[in-house]
């Protein structure tokens, strides 16, 4: 394991932020810490980096216990949400910083800096100051700076949080490709489930300071451990008191075993998919169907249709937390 966090507790004053958190991050993986704001994701990342001390529990990096080790000696790269660019240094000097304080030979620093700037596509920007870069460029510079010291693990705190939607999407894909190229164990914090599913190969869901579930994105999406995780990872609707993904609802015009009747109240066409809003047993529900199916059934408000969950999955009761 590249990172092992064991039974970590952390409070700020009387407010518990992390409660008995255990997380293992496999070497070479790209892991997302996913959860709502205030769930303790960033604090956990800072505990791993050594920027916060846990009240209890241990942190190990590459097998050695670093709980009491200062951040300087943990060999981690950390990328901050707001870049933490050294404003008085050029892009090149920013990237070179970690190597300079390590007193590496000049020629080596120069070679490594230009190699990294090429990796993050900033080779033209070496002599600019951070203030002259766009948000996305600054974040890439911060990434190059963190990678310069060849860290054992790379930690990214909401790396795309301060960027606009378009740049966010580009950087996401780019980060995935970069990880495939560099293979450094990476952990990133995000509150965006789409980002986590798209980029990560492992997702750790954190809420109220507790690890609720961890696993690969498909598993967490398809077999959520709790209704909370299910709701957080994608759209959900209720069917006969159970939670279902709207695209996992089978909708037919004729009654079938296990299906419940529902009355169509509204039909919304969103390009290739159709959102059918219904009332079943006095409660609202909805299903996501293809345009083709909607046309075949000739759905209009007031029709009676029959619904049942598509897959044979363990369904979660809607009432549970």
């Amino acid at each position: 394991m590249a990172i092992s966090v064991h039974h970590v507790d952390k409070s700020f004053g009387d407010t518990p932020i992390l409660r008995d958190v255990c997380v293992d991050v496999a070497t070479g993986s790209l892991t997302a810490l996913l959860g709502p704001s205030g769930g303790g994701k960033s604090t956990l990342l800072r505990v791993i980096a050594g920027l916060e001390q846990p009240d209890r529990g241990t942190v190990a990096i590459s097998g050695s216990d670093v709980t009491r080790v200062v951040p300087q000696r943990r060999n981690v790269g950390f990328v901050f949400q707001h870049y933490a660019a050294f404003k008085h240094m050029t892009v090149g000097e920013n990237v070179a910083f970690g190597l300079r304080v390590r007193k590496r030979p000049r020629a080596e620093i120069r070679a490594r800096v230009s190699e990294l700037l090429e990796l993050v596509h900033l080779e033209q920007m070496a002599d600019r100051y951070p203030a002259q870069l766009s948000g996305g460029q600054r974040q890439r510079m911060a990434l190059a700076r963190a990678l310069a010291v060849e860290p054992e693990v790379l930690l990214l705190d909401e790396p795309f949080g301060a960027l606009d939607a378009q740049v966010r999407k580009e950087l996401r894909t780019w980060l995935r490709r970069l990880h495939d190229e560099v293979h450094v164990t990476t952990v990133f914090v995000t509150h965006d489930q789409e980002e986590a599913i798209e980029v990560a190969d492992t997702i750790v869901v954190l809420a109220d300071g507790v690890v609720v579930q961890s696993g690969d994105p498909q598993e967490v999406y398809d077999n959520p451990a709790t209704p909370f995780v299910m709701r957080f990872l994608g759209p959900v609707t209720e069917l006969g008191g159970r939670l279902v993904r709207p695209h996992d609802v089978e909708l037919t015009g004729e009654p079938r075993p296990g299906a419940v009747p529902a009355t169509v109240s509204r039909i919304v066409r969103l390009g290739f998919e159709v959102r059918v809003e219904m009332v079943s047993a006095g409660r609202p529900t909805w299903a996501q169907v293809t345009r083709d199916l909607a046309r075949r059934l000739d759905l209009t408000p007031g029709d009676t249709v029959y619904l049942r969950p598509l897959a044979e999955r363990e369904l979660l009761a809607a009432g549970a937390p």
Partner: protein
Amino acid sequence: MARHVLRLTALTYLLFLLVLPVGLIAWRTFEHGLGPFVAALSTEEARHAFRVTIVVALWAVALNTVFGVGTAILLARHEFPGKRLLNALIDLPLAVSPVVVGLALVLVYGRFAPVGGWLDRAGIQVIFSVPGMVLATAFVSLPLVVRAVLPVLAELGDEQEQAAYTLGATGWQTFRRITVPGIRAALGYGVVLCLARSLGEYGAVAVVSGRLVGQTQTLTLFVEERFQNFDQVAAYAAATSLAVIAVLTLLVTRLLRPKDSR
């Protein structure tokens, strides 16, 4: 109309309070050309007063720079019991009259006081000598560096410093390469203000120095002593040079003050 009245009032106020007195001093100084001015400031006493003033001011500025930066970092980056008290104490020198400061220092460091007596036996004379004058000057100019640096440090935040730590920089490397460049302009501003205040200090220094001509006489004390002895040429000449130094430091602060954006 109201605006004109307001403007006229402000100008008149400044004229009688500031422009007229300072202007008259300058006029009196150079009334008979540069000759008497140069002669008055080339006497042994005058040159000695210049030297004492510079030595005392530089020491006070050095002490307050170290103390100021250290305290600002402590207040901006750390939580500790007594923080609010420390924060309030820093402004005390602004409220206490310099004469009181001088007397208080004599009470502690005078030859017949416990601390002063102990130092005296160790061969260090504080009161009526340069160390006491440095203490008095440092006391009155104490808040200037802290108050200039603290807001900038707080605004800067600690993310850059934390980034430096994760990149392997030690505390000292981080301070020198990240913190100091970040506060450079504010620090320069605070230092110049502190220097200006130190050069012009009179009350506290008057009490602790003993005003020994040719020994512990600073430029401000020299002005007063010459004036009392009806040597108005020397008094005006020294006063003018103090004013010129003040204007120069003001200009430097003006140059340091603007946009610290990059």
